[in-house]
C-alpha cells in the first residue's frame, strides 16, 4: 500500500493537473465542509505522529494552541531535512508538492492559520523552485490566496530557504532563523504552540507529517490508525542508506520489522557481507547490533529498546566498516553543528572530537572510551535543546555496544602508527 509515495513514479506528478487526476484536492474540499475541531479530532484518532523525529502526536500538538489569543497563528512546515541518513521529505517536495500543499491547506483550516512558511534547507534549491511553481499554480486556480476554494478563508504559503545549519531543523532554532536571527534554540517552555514565530502561536510540523493529513481526511482517523501499530498510526517513509543493495526511500506501515526493511525492501547486504550494526532513526539514534534488528519500527518499540525511531533514517553498517572511524564521522558532525550557545554542548562536543581525533591519530588512551562516555553523559539533560542529546546518544551507543572494538583500536593503533604528519582524523574522514 502506498499513500504519500503513491505519485512518486507518475510522470509530471508535480503538476497540479496530474495531481487532481489522481484525486488530489478532493480532501481539502471535504475538509472545508468539516468543523475545524472535527479535523483535529480525526488527526488525534489517527495516531499520526510527528515524523520529523520526536514523534509527538500531531493532533495533540494542534490542540495545544491557546484559545482566545487574539494574535495571528502560524503554521511552519519543517523541510530542513538535516538529520544524516534522512532523505525522505525531498521525495514529497520533488514529486508531490501539491500533496504537501493540500496538507498545509487542511492543517491551516483546522488550526485557523492564514500564513504558512515552508522552511526548506538551503541546499534544496531544486525543491524550493518546484514548491514555488506549485504554489503559483495553486494560487492561479484559486486554491491559495484571499479566498481558498471560494471560501472566506485566506491562505498564503511562503517558501523560506535556510542557509546551511543542522541546528535550524530544531523547531525553536528554526523559528529564530525564520525571524532573521542566528539559529540559536530557545528555552522551552514556552512551546511554539503558545509562543512561536514573532511570539505568536505557531505549529511546527515536518513535511511528511503534514503530507499524511490529506490521507487522514480521506480514510478517516480510525482507518488510518489501523494501518500502523498501536499508538503509531498509518505508514511512513523509511530512508535506507549505507551497506545495502538497494538504498532508497520506502513507504511501509509503522511497526514494520527492521529486518524486513533491510533484507526485503532494501535488498539485503552485498554478497559475502554480514550485518554489523544499524542506526535505525537518523544519526542521532543509538545504534543497534545485528542481534537487535527483530524490532517493529515504531516510536514506542524503539524507545523501549533504548533507541529512537526518529526520522526513520536507517543507516546500515556491514562487517567491513570500522565503527571507531564511523563514530568519529558522527562526532565531527555534531561538534561542527553545535550552535555554540550553551556550554555543555559546545564544549562537550568539542572535547569528544578531540578525544576521537587522538584515538584515530594513534594517541588514544585506554581510558578514552570511558572519557567519551563521561562527557556524553554530562551533556545529556544539560543543554538548551536536544542537539546535546543527539550528539551524545550515538557516542554512548557505539562505545557501549562495541566497546571491544574501541579498546582494540586504541591498543593496536598506538603500536602500528608512527606519529602522523597530518591528522588522520582530518585527512581520512
Amino acid at each position: 500500500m502506498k499513500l504519500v509515495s503513491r505519485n512518486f513514479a507518475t510522470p509530471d506528478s508535480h503538476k497540479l493537473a496530474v495531481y487532481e487526476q489522481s484525486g488530489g484536492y478532493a480532501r481539502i474540499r471535504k475538509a472545508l465542509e468539516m468543523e475545524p475541531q472535527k479535523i483535529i479530532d480525526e488527526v488525534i484518532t489517527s495516531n499520526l505522529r510527528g515524523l520529523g523525529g520526536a514523534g509527538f502526536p500531531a493532533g495533540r500538538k494542534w490542540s495545544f494552541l491557546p484559545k482566545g489569543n487574539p494574535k495571528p497563528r502560524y503554521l511552519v512546515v519543517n523541510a530542513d531535512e538535516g538529520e544524516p541518513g534522512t532523505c525522505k521529505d525531498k521525495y514529497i517536495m520533488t514529486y508531490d508538492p501539491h500533496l504537501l500543499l493540500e496538507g498545509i491547506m487542511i492543517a491551516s483550516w483546522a488550526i485557523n492559520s492564514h500564513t504558512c512558511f515552508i522552511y526548506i534547507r538551503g541546499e534544496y534549491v531544486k525543491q524550493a523552485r518546484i514548491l514555488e511553481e506549485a504554489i503559483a499554480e495553486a494560487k492561479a486556480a484559486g486554491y491559495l490566496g484571499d479566498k481558498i476554494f471560494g471560501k472566506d478563508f485566506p491562505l498564503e504559503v511562503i517558501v523560506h530557504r535556510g542557509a546551511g545549519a543542522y541546528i535550524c531543523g530544531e523547531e525553536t532554532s528554526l523559528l529564530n532563523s525564520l525571524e532573521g536571527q542566528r539559529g540559536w534554540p530557545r528555552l522551552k517552555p514556552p512551546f511554539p504552540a503558545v509562543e512561536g514565530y514573532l511570539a505568536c502561536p505557531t505549529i511546527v510540523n515536518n513535511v511528511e507529517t503534514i503530507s499524511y493529513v490529506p490521507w487522514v481526511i480521506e480514510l478517516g482517523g480510525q482507518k488510518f490508525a489501523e494501518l500502523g501499530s498501536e499508538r503509531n498510526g498509518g505508514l511512513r517513509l523509511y530512508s535506507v542508506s549505507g551497506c545495502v543493495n538497494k538504498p532508497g526511500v520506502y513507504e511501509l506501515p509503522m511497526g514494520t520489522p527492521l529486518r524486513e526493511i533491510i533484507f526485503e525492501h532494501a535488498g539485503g547486504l552485498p554478497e559475502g557481507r554480514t550485518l554489523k550494526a544499524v542506526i535505525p532513526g537518523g544519526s542521532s539514534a543509538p545504534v543497534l547490533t545485528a542481534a537487535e534488528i527483530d524490532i517493529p519500527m515504531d516510536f514506542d518499540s524503539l524507545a523501549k529498546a533504548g533507541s529512537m525511531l526518529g526520522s526513520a533514517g536507517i543507516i546500515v553498517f556491514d562487517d567491513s566498516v570500522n565503527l571507531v572511524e564511523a563514530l568519529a564521522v558522527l562526532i565531527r558532525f555534531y561538534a561542527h553543528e553545535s550552535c555554540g550557545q550553551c556550554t555543555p554542548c559546545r564544549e562537550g562536543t568539542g572535547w569528544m572530537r578531540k578525544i576521537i581525533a587522538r584515538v584515530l591519530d594513534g594517541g588514544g588512551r585506554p581510558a578514552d572510551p570511558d572519557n567519551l562516555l563521561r562527557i556524553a553523559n554530562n551533556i545529556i539533560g544539560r543543554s538548551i535543546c536536544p542537539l546535546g542529546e543527539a550528539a551524545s546518544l550515538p557516542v554512548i551507543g557505539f562505545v557501549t555496544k562495541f566497546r571491544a572494538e574501541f579498546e582494540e583500536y586504541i591498543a593496536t593503533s598506538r603500536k602500528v602508527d608512527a606519529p602522523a604528519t597530518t591528522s588522520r582524523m582530518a585527512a581520512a574522514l
Partner: protein
Amino acid sequence: MKNDGYSVTNKIMADSITTEQTQPAVFSPAAFKEAEAIIARYPSRDSATLPILHLAQREFGYISPAVEQLAADLLQRPVTDIHGVVTFYTMFNQKPVGKYHIQICRNISCWLKNAPGLLEHLKNRLGIDVGETTPDGKFTLTAIECLAHCEQAPAMQVNDDIITNLTKEKIDTLIGDLK
C-alpha cells in the same frame, strides 16, 4: 553551522577586517525590486534577512562587509546583526569562491560509500586543498556535512545542483565538462 575546528572561520574573519572594501555595494535596479518584493512578503522586516542574503550572494558572489552593509540598510538592522547571521550559516561565503563551488558530502552515508577517497581524488584532480580555490578562479573545493541524498550516496553539490552516485570517473567527466 560554522563551528568546525578545521574550518577557516577565524582566518576569514581576520581577512574581512583587514581587506575591508571601501566601495559600497549597490543592487542593480532589478535586484532591488526583487529585494523589495521579498521584504513585502514577511510580517516582519527581519524575517527577510536570509532571502535578502541569498539574493545578495547571487548578485555579488559572496557577502563582503560592503554587502553586509547593503543588507543592513535594506533591512534596517544594525550591520553587526547581519554579520552575526552571515557568520552563523555555512552557505554564506565571506570570501569570493570559484565559478564552480564543489561541495562534497563527508557525512556518514557518503563516508560509507568512499567519500574520503573521492575527496582525495578531487584534491588531486584540482590541485587544491579543502577550502581553496584554483588559481584560475574556476573551482573552489569544500567538504560539507549531510546533503540529504544519503540514498544516492556519495553526493556533492556544484553551485545549485546536486550530483549523486558519484564515482571517480563521473567526477572526471563532470570537471572536464565544466567550462
